């Protein structure tokens, strides 16, 4: 009898890239449902458009680079990038916003650096940064949460879709009338116009920790993150060090001057703190790979997020913080290697 000759190990692998990506999507699902409940169907429309654009860009780039197209399209990585991007785009967005974001993410951030596994920067955050810098107005079309009693009807699924396609709403609704700044925006604007934090947070959008609706979305993002931790898809180092850095800084400044600096819980539950900590900073390709490196990387992001929010030019800073720390990863990987077994201490 003759048998095949293959090198060891012969045992079956325990996981695969598509499986990992599938679990990331599962983990985002509860938060997406909450998002739909509070802010309408916009996120789903954006996610679908972004996914289609990302897959198209991926296929095109693979063709251009003469790489096999099918396995890469099925690995789920472009889909995850697109869905994460959709979480960062306002629910009311013309179709070309998610398209430009997704194409920038896949073409600029991913394939120009060599495709999956070779990109230095987080693709979703590059896509978001491109949108934020190029279309600052469109990126403010956030909607008020359900139940905020702001005196006008919420935008329905049909209206969102219509806006996505045509870029305008039915006559009765004007874009400026229906959109609403996010809690982080309001805090920022209020503080620059010399209001105290307590005055700003007395508004109808606040209540709870990070703002109405956002509390739910972000809590469910944390639940999804814990699911990924539990499944062993991400490790604790980055989320813990990033959230701890934000919380400690916020707590210190809040204690010093509560009228000008928001509390730790507000910082953790508003904006993209939790999404960033569990889903964006933990993107394996662009994050540090050693445990010590991960702690430094996460803490660096947390510090930058707080600094940008508090003293920088943007209401939220997760995207820029992640991109800045991405650039330090090669260095972190090199100088935080663990001591090898049997080598001198």
């Amino acid at each position, binding site marked *: 009898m003759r048998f095949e*000759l293959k090198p060891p190990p*012969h045992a079956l692998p325990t996981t695969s890239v598509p499986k990992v990506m599938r679990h990331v999507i599962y983990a985002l699902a509860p938060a997406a449902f909450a998002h739909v409940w509070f802010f309408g169907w916009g996120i789903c429309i954006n996610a679908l458009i972004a996914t289609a654009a990302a897959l198209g860009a991926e296929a095109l780039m693979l063709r251009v680079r003469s790489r096999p197209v099918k396995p890469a399209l099925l690995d789920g990585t472009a889909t995850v990038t697109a869905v994460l991007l959709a979480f960062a785009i306002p629910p009311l967005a013309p179709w070309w916003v998610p398209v430009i974001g997704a194409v920038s993410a896949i073409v600029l951030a991913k394939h120009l650096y060599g495709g999956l596994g070779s990109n230095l920067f987080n693709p979703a955050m590059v896509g978001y940064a491109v949108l934020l810098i190029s279309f600052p107005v469109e990126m403010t079309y956030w909607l008020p949460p359900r139940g905020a009693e702001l005196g006008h009807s919420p935008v329905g699924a049909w209206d969102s879709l219509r806006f996505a396609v045509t870029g305008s709403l039915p006559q009765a609704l004007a874009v400026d009338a229906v959109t609403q700044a996010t809690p982080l925006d309001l805090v920022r604007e209020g503080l620059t116009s010399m209001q105290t934090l307590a005055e700003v947070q007395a508004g109808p959008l606040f209540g709870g920790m990070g703002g109405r609706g956002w509390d739910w979305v972000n809590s469910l993002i944390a639940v999804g993150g814990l699911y990924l931790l539990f499944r062993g898809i991400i490790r604790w180092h980055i989320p813990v060090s990033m959230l701890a850095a934000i919380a400690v800084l916020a707590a210190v400044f809040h204690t010093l001057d509560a009228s000008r600096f928001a509390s730790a819980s507000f910082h953790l539950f508003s904006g993209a703190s939790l999404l960033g900590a569990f889903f964006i900073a933990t993107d394996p390709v662009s994050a540090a790979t050693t445990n010590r490196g991960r702690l430094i990387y996460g803490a660096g992001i947390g510090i930058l997020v707080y600094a940008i929010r508090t003293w920088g030019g943007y209401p939220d800073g997760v995207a820029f913080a992640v991109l800045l720390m991405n650039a330090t990863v090669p260095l972190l990987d090199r100088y935080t290697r663990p001591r090898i077994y049997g080598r001198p201490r």
Partner: protein
Amino acid sequence: MSTGTPIARGLLPERLIIPMDQQAGPAAVPVVEVGQRVRKGEMIGRPGGLRSAGVHASASGTIGAIREGPVPTVNGLTTSLCVHLQTDGRDEQAPSEGWPRERDARIDAICNAGIVGLGGAVFSTAEKLRDDAECDLLILNGAECEPYISCDDMLMREHPLEVVRGALAMMDLTGAESTVFAVERDKPDALRAVREAAAQLGDTRIEFARVPTVYPAGGERQLVELLTGREVPSGSYPPAAGCICQNVGTAFALDRFMRRGEPLTSRIVTVTGNGVAHPANVEVPIGTPIGDLIHFCGGYRGDVTRLILGGNMMGYALPGDNLPITKAGNCIVAAHADEIRESTGEWPCIRCGDCADVCPPRLLPQQLLRAATVRDFDQLDSLGLNDCIECGCCDIACPSQIALTERFRQAKQAWAVVSQRAAMADLATRRHRRKLARLAAQTEDIHRQQDDLIAAIGSEDSRAMIEAAVARASRRRGESDTAH
């Protein structure tokens, strides 16, 4: 699935292929001739040097041939001289030589009896025991090296007394202060059995330790760290950390030799996998062709795609089943296609670091992969390529399903070639430099002689000699002029 039934015995194939190269050291040298009758336990190969070991007839019969043939060794499939033995089924035993009194004689006897490490590394047991390094701890390794393998478990359950007696003898021979007997947590029966055996023998020196069932806890470097917190220095063996590791199968073999004078002629082999009809642990005469062993276990079942010697983590695939079981052969897996890894293509590395989380020597396989791809040997060195124990854990954990271990194996080979070439180039450079120095010295010698001559020319005597010579020359010229 191979621990449900007791160790199966009575396997005696018609023909045994007994390789001379069965131990980590040099091959044994045949001491029999074709046509010669041998009894079971008779020496057929004497130790071929330091770290070698004797090889013995595993059954009585007639030597059919002595020729080169393929042999699965620890270093892969190689060619070795093999003694082919036609068995006669009479099972005649060679007379035993008895257990010597002196320590040195005992250790020589262990070497001649062919006892080597039966955990799979087949390192000379005599050399390990002889080593006078300052070892204070003897570790009895009852942790299987791989998930599929259960031969040590079964041996401890069925022969605890022999194993413990062998361990005590090892203790006396090494003079180790303490002995730890390590058994995996999921083998409570084995642990109970050896504990009771120790109590029965009235021994209180052996300490028993339950170790977690985490592959590769049975690897000696990992076991030393687990039990003592010490690390075996990079590039050396457990004695460098004050420990000696001995497999329980080796202890069993030692006891058999001490008490019955029987050299090592058989070992327990785990036969498993979905492709074998009755998985079992079998006491196998050394040299049994694998096909006979499978036949003994009810033959093949279904479509066997891969035949693996050793476990499915570190064992290697065999091309056929006409190869013999050697002292290193702890397990045979006859695998169906659905229980083994098919290399169906890989995704690019996504740098998730799952590989680093499972790496026992705490390497960064993902960084190693990058350096291995571009053959950056300086980087590979600082990342610890040669500290890789090739356990295969990173392959299993990798979501991109990259064949990491195989890449590292290839990189190690490439590195060995490169360093050998570098060493040769270095040697050539040194030779060339030495030659230049030699030539320079010679030139200097000649110059010194010339200088001496010139110095001599300056003296009074030489001036007279020169004048005489000039006079002689002009006279001769004058003579030649007149001749014309």
